[in-house]
């Protein structure tokens, strides 16, 4: 009778375990990566809606962030590079009652998938797009992305990036998104609230989340993981309702975060139903 009952006890369940394919853990994300934090915020936000889980689906493209779809215990789709949004649009238009979340990275959504992003925003397709922006192509080892700051080093710009990055909130707003926010992984509570708000928002909602990639971005740009977090803390300015045109990422000047846009306008599926399915919807 020497057995310590505490040793036999099952470890306590994590409050998000019911949304995780625990048999797939450990995940692939590197130490210091921020994707897990964004993912966890996303799960908390889903939970906070109190909607049945079978009302949700998650779609992703290719890349580190896109692996999130493989860990969430929902109907989930890990598709081709850049194509999460049109795949998700097919789901949404065929089943307008579903809550569709696209969880992917900046390379996937804004380089190879950029065209799909602007068109889904233009239509105000009712879905939530969460972009983990780590300023680089992490999975392939740190190549320059459409979001890499000017003069930042990457494996394909060893002397520095000659080009300018996208301002993603401005791009989303200009294309027609009806909810636009930006947070960093440091503000997890604000981020969780924002994702919850975006899920509940009827229309194309976009949340950019700045997230460190210490292995493939920080290392080449003399930015230690703690330095990145300090930038997120000391060089960001929370300004709700800010003009997205002021949202360029320049930590020297301060990066604007917060909720830029939250407006009501008709969605793609609403208009289709109204124009083409008047009898069926009754």
């Amino acid at each position: 009778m020497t057995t310590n009952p505490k040793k036999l006890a099952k470890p306590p369940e994590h409050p998000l375990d019911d949304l995780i394919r625990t048999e797939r853990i450990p995940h692939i994300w590197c130490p210091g990566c921020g994707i897990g934090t964004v993912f966890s915020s996303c799960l908390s936000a889903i939970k906070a809606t109190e909607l049945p889980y079978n009302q949700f689906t998650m779609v992703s493209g290719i890349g580190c962030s896109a692996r999130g779809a493989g860990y969430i215990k929902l109907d989930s789709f890990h598709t081709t590079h850049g194509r999460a949004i049109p795949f998700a649009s097919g789901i949404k238009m065929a089943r307008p009652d579903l809550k569709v979340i696209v969880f992917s990275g900046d390379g996937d959504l804004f380089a190879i998938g950029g065209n799909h992003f602007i068109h889904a925003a233009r239509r105000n397709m009712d879905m939530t797009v969460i972009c983990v922006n780590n300023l680089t192509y992490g999975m392939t080892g740190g190549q320059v992305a459409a979001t890499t700051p000017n003069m930042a080093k990457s494996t394909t710009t060893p002397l520095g990036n000659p080009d300018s990055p996208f301002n993603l909130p401005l791009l989303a707003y200009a294309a027609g998104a009806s909810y636009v926010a930006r947070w960093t992984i440091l503000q997890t509570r604000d981020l969780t609230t924002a994702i919850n708000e975006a899920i509940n928002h009827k229309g194309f909602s976009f949340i950019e989340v700045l997230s460190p990639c210490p292995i493939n971005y920080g290392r080449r740009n003399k930015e230690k993981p703690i330095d990145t977090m300090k930038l997120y803390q000391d060089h960001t300015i929370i300004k709700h309702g800010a003009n997205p045109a002021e949202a360029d990422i320049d930590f020297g000047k301060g990066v604007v975060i917060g909720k830029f846009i939250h407006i009501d306008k008709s969605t793609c599926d609403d208009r289709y139903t109204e124009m083409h399915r008047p009898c069926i919807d009754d």
Partner: protein
Amino acid sequence: MKPAVLTGEHYITGDVACAEGAIAAGCKFFGAYPITPATEIAEHMAARLPDIGGTFIQMEDEIAAIASILGAAWTGVKSMTATSGPGFSLMMENLGLGVCTETPCVIVNVQRTGPSTGLPTQTGQGDMMQARWGSHGDYELIALAPSSPQDCFYQTIRAFNLSEKYRVPVLVMADEIVGHMSEKVVIPEAKKIQVVDRPKPSGRKDRFHLYEAGPNGVAPMPAIGDGYNVHVTGLTHDERGYPAMTVEAQEEMMTRIKGKIRNNLDDIIETESYKMEDADIVVVSYGVSVRTGLSAVDQARAKGYKVGLLRLITVWPFPEEMIREIAKKVKGFITVEINLGQVHYEVERCAGGDAKAVLVGSAGGKIIHPEKVLACIQEEF
């Protein structure tokens, strides 16, 4: 609301017949992108789908069009897109996703002449090998070739049925002439049209495995929201659908997804024979070129040649065994196709030296004249 099946006699184009076939087969979602000579399919579906509670969406490009139909398919609906050469090229990557994730859907390619922009308004059959091998990696899929508007109607229905039964993208390889010509199309009563729906899972949801196949190699397919919590990935995956980065998982997955086609060839392959009973020369053809073949056979018969026609309705998987058997009995094959040799090389491979194999092809733009086939018969046999 108009009925789904427009029973009666119609005078319509192959493109419109294709769309009506899709609707008769139960298609409820069309992801479009305009391209000559397939645009009319999209236009017809845009007008017809709301009639029957379906959804039409014109996407921003062909990549998005095929992505949207794959997504829609997982909501439990039958979905399709239609395109031509350049758009078909753009669809290749997601065609592979459809094969790998075993997503039923139908892709119509109303072929025009290539390469590149080619002759956009003129016929061709130059995408046949792309249909077979265009997406990267090894795989099996099904491709059918209609040769008339009536056939467009039936082959599109059959495409949906095969797609649902085997959970594989099915290609309808039409061409500009078949797509744009108008002929009489008879649409039968709805109850006389055989419609197949994908196998659905039953039993305990906590023990469900997404790719646990039944006896024919095909696994039941739940829809989003059914409560099975599926994970669907284009990565090599195990029976649960989870990524499995091992050579063993790759071998197992490939064996099954190729096997479900290779082990059911009798059900999938459909051909038609014309005057083949005593033939010692066989014209092999598919799609619009069947019309060339039929006329050539009659003209050659009138001159005393024992010629028959083998029409490939299913082009992929290729009827290898049938060609091998015929090769033992005949002098040779003449493959008629509007390209400079694609299916011809398959015929030659299967003839295996037992019979001569020659090509009557063309660089594209118009139907091949039967006299060209007749001249070949006279020259070669």
